[in-house]
């Protein structure tokens, strides 16, 4: 149970970064931390007591392995997170070229 609470703490750290920082890159880092905390939560859901890694070999039994399905799902989720980070970083670089600043309080042409 305490591991799930620590995932929540990590999520809140990322949320603080997304809400309170004014630099674009720091906001992106906050979003990344939130994504990784949720991936960690999903992997921890698959833990079985006294389990081993779910790698099949001629001398392993399946009964004392952890759940392998969350691990496959989280691999896909990490790839999706990578794609989003790549897009956000290139957007941030282009915004810096056009506006000359990375401060979000100064990039506010769209209003109303």
């Amino acid at each position, binding site marked *: 149970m305490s591991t799930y609470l620590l995932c929540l703490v990590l999520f809140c750290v990322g949320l603080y970064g997304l809400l309170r920082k004014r630099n674009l890159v720091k906001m992106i880092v906050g979003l990344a931390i939130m994504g990784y905390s949720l991936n960690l939560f999903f992997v921890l859901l698959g833990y079985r007591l006294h389990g081993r*890694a779910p*790698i*099949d*070999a*001629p001398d392993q039994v399946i009964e004392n392995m952890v759940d392998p399905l969350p691990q496959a799902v989280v*691999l896909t989720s990490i*790839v999706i997170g990578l794609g989003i980070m*790549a897009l956000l*970083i*290139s957007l941030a*670089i*282009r915004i*810096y*070229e056009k506006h000359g600043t990375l401060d979000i309080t100064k990039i506010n042409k769209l209003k109303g």
Partner: protein
Amino acid sequence: MTLLVKTASRLVVVLGLIFGIHIILHGHLAPGGGFAGGVIIALSFVLLILAFGKDAALSKLSLKLASNLENVGALLFLIIGLLGFWGGAFFLNILVKGSPFRLFSAGTIPLNNIVIGLKVGVGLFVIFLTLVILEKSKKEE
């Protein structure tokens, strides 16, 4: 970059490529698979850019060739899936499945791993190269 970094990275780049290919090929037996191996291959190319500058990496694998390889990888993956239609269902595993725990077993899964490794490796290299070129063009203005 200093002489120390350049000498060491000459060895590490080759080791990284071999290690990445090892992880891709053993994707159905050990942890890893297409995506993890692809990232390691891309990282060895990125190390080449960091140590020697982007022209060294561009001479090994130009941007046009990399983009074409990426698209070919995606198309190959789709074609491997479409081959399953001969067996009756989309993505059916139609190749011969050998005995378990051998390297040449499990039908189309190693082929999928290889194609994904190619696409992810080249794709991450292209992303990094695009960000470097954007940075350079901004500095020249």
